[in-house]
């Protein structure tokens, strides 16, 4: 596939595809050229990178915040089941 000028909609799609290793060499190169010239798409790329880093860290942050816990009833139920099966 030749290198070509991308519309923003195509560039956004390739931004996503490239995160999953799904963009070809020529697509990635075309995307690079678009990002040099376009004002919005590089910002969107930064937003997506932010989200990717965010979600990787989310479980650990929730553990640190200790917002979610097993209810006492659930803990009791699980212990009883384990004793029955132990």
């Amino acid at each position: 596939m030749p290198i070509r000028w991308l519309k923003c909609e195509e560039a956004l799609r390739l931004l996503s595809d490239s995160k999953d290793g799904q963009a070809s060499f020529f697509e990635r190169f075309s995307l690079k050229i678009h990002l040099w010239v376009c004002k919005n798409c590089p910002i969107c790329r930064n937003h997506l990178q932010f989200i990717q880093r965010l979600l990787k860290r989310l479980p650990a942050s929730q553990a640190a915040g200790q917002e979610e816990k097993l209810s006492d009833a659930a803990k009791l139920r699980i212990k009883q089941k384990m004793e029955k099966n132990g």
Partner: protein
Amino acid sequence: MVDSTADWVERYGDILYRFALARCRTPEVAEDLVQETFLAGLRARQNFRDGSSLQTWLIGILKHKIIDHFRSRKWTISLDNAPEGHNADGEITRLLKLPLKEWNASPEKALENQAFRRALNQCLDSLPETWRELFLMREMDEMESAELCNIFKVSPTNLRVILYRARMQLRGCLEKNWFRN
């Protein structure tokens, strides 16, 4: 190794629960998965090697339970009928028209803010359920595309579209509900 079952639940129950809840987003399902994990761990405790981390071992079992849970779902993820709650296409159209601004934030710092975590969780919960689980397995656990296609019974092409739409919808939701303010 900790032998007491009460110790297992007290020590690791919350950690496993949060791990499951982050991925399946439903408290009842997360509880069931934690229960299944402890029971499976109980049955397989002879396989656990002293000296390694019991928590890591249990989370390994939980990961398999989560995958089995998603695999057992009966629904088919389709792109033809846009699922309820999906507004990714509208979001992309808006994105193309408006000038964007940098968020000027670090993910790590943002996650220290409880209000931001609440906004993020609301945005995640607003994603169509059929996409959300697949998307979170990709982003949180870096699951490979081939495995995701296998578990969620989607084609590679559909997977790419789902991930794209989920990313765009989440981006738009965070911008509207947090960063724009």
